[in-house]
């Protein structure tokens, strides 16, 4: 077991005298193995997610200063291969508020620990639909958008654009397969159908011969409106663009992508959040950073409004109609009372601009258009939140 605890905010909390209430937050980072990818152009930052939580913490502390509320954040990093349960037990013995950045299996195992009973665990990384349905837990809230929310956002875009002739290339990694399945579900949900689907199982180095391979690989598709790429690891997808047999748009994991957050989001005051993040960490704010920021801010917002650091009080407030988080996405963010998912608009982006923001115009819902994205109440089998 190797645990590294890092005080992230000691200097900030020290300056806050007279705090009448303190909320301690842990960030449990469960490192996951990443298979090699064809290109190393975009290395993942070491502190992905953690940096977002840090900005959220500073936002909370600044607000708390005026109310006698203080916040701390500590990182617990579990190396790949080490046991996340022991780290979770340690964290839960110290606080009831834990952000979890890890795979779905670890998340549910932690949620089922006796020590997690009555805690608030915030999922900032796992996009699995099951966590919002059959495998949901009453003590887990999700600030990261589900994969279903992201593929629903793209499906709305296809409908709006009348791109109804769609084909897909999917990788073989479990995340790629999950994405392809989520996309299939979304297409069906919005009355679309997938034409051909091919699996990308090449092991050639595409930096050298993409131009030769991809045209032939995509020639079989014949004509279509758009090509969906399921490549959640960023392995081969980048070599598909501009190399297809037909000149058609690429969407999905590459090209036009649906994301929880992207550096090109600048409307609705988002520039301020982007600036705060970039000034502090010298890099762009990634989706996981946003999910972690939203998790810490959601806790902070609940503390601000309830004047309490009691987990049960905060949880019931966060799931109530009173709760709203200003998340720089143009409308208030709230939690779904049936599965703990944070409702949020999903930006559709390319690397240089925001193209659209789902829910798109015309997709209506009796409660809120935001519920056209992801698992709506009848689509979710979650019953844990019912009581």
């Amino acid at each position: 077991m190797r645990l590294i605890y890092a005080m992230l905010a000691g200097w900030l909390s020290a300056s806050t005298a007279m705090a009448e209430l303190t909320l301690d937050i842990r960030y449990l980072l469960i490192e996951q193995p990443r298979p090699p990818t064809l290109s190393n152009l975009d290395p993942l930052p070491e502190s992905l997610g953690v940096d977002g939580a840090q900005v959220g913490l500073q936002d909370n502390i600044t607000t708390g200063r005026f109310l006698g509320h203080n916040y701390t954040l500590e990182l617990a990093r579990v190396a790949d291969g080490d046991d996340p349960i022991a780290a979770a037990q340690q964290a839960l013995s110290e606080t009831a508020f834990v952000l979890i950045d890890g795979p779905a299996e670890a998340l549910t195992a932690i949620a089922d620990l006796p020590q997690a009973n009555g805690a608030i665990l915030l999922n900032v990384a796992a996009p699995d639909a099951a966590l919002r349905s059959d495998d949901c837990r009453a003590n887990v809230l999700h600030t990261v958008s589900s994969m279903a929310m992201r593929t629903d956002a793209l499906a709305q875009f296809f409908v709006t654009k009348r791109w109804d002739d769609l084909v897909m290339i999917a990788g073989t990694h479990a995340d790629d397969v999950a994405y392809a399945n989520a996309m299939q579900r979304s297409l069906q949900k919005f009355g679309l159908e997938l034409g051909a689907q091919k699996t990308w199982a090449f092991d050639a180095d595409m930096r050298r011969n993409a131009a030769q391979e991809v045209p032939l690989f995509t020639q079989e598709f014949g004509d279509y409106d758009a090509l969906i790429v399921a490549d959640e690891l960023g392995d081969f997808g980048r070599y598909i663009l501009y190399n297809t047999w037909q000149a058609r748009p690429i969407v999905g994991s590459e090209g036009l992508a649906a994301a929880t957050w992207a550096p090109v989001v600048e409307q609705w005051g988002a520039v301020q959040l982007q600036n705060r993040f970039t000034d502090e960490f010298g890099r762009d704010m990634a989706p996981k950073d946003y999910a972690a920021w939203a998790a810490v801010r959601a806790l902070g917002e609940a503390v601000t409004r309830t004047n309490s650091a009691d987990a049960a009080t905060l949880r019931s407030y966060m799931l109530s109609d009173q709760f709203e988080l200003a998340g720089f996405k143009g409308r208030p963010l709230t939690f779904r009372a049936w599965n703990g998912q944070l409702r949020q608009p999903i930006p559709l982006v390319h690397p240089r601009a925001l193209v659209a923001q789902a829910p798109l115009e015309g997709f209506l819902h009796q409660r809120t258009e935001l519920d056209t994205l992801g698992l709506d109440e009848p689509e979710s089998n979650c019953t844990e939140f019912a009581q």
Partner: protein
Amino acid sequence: MIRLMVALTLTASPVFADEIWVSNEKDDTISVIDVETLEVIKTYPTGERPRGITFSKDYSRLYICASDSDTVQVMDPNTGEILFELPSGEDPEQFVLHPDNRHLYIANEDDAITTVVDTETRKVVAQIDVGIEPEGMAVSPDGKIAITTSETTNMAHWIDTSTQQLFANTLVDSRPRHAEFAKEGSELWVSSEIGGTITVFSVADQSEIAKIDFEVTGVHPDRVQPVGFEFTTGDTHAFVALGPSNHVAVVNAETYEVEDYILVGRRVWHMDFNADRSQLFTTNGVSGDVTVIDVASRKPVKTIKVGRFPWGAAFRPTDQSGG
């Protein structure tokens, strides 16, 4: 001979009509609208990303928050020339000129600070720590209280202008955008963009008197987002810009009830009145225009194209130099 007569006639009658000045956030310009003809008569270049604008009490100077230039520019409105720049702190977004006509209270959006600048000595007098993303600025008619609202902290911060210290912090709904004193300084109104409300405070004890909700038919409540607002003569009514719902609400300031909704351009943001407050000019960010509203009939009467993303609006009378 004929030419001379024309010139004489022109000088005899008022050559200049009253004006509405509009800052164009994404064009780095200011558009000047003639209130008589309702046309843009001049466009002046400014620093980067001009947002808040306000005139000195005698209208001899225009102050411009050039947000991305990190400065407040001072323009001669007769020539459009930038006379000098004031230190403003980083990313000035909005400001308010103290009744002493000398001190500017500036919200520094990126820095969680309110900066007080003396426009005569051109020096920073004070910097006050406030919440995250300060934006709305107001000062009481007697000059004793200044207000900063912070968008992410969701508070109105009350500043004692004699000490430049905070003396109260009051929570409001999400993303407070704009603040105004009303009824001779006895009330403070604060709009919350994401919360979708206006909170009315009693200034005497900072207690909440009322909360105003908005409801536009056919628009989801999430998209009804109050931002800028201004009061009619005698503070009987407030006209409230509702952002992406593309409507302006008319609120009865006695009953706090909404009486009307007026359709304007897209993402309506701020506004100002003409001299007798019979006409209201709203800036519509997304559609890049200004809607002119007839206050008596509460009807939009004209749309005027300005620059990209018009943000602030400020009235300038013809008779500005006491003449």
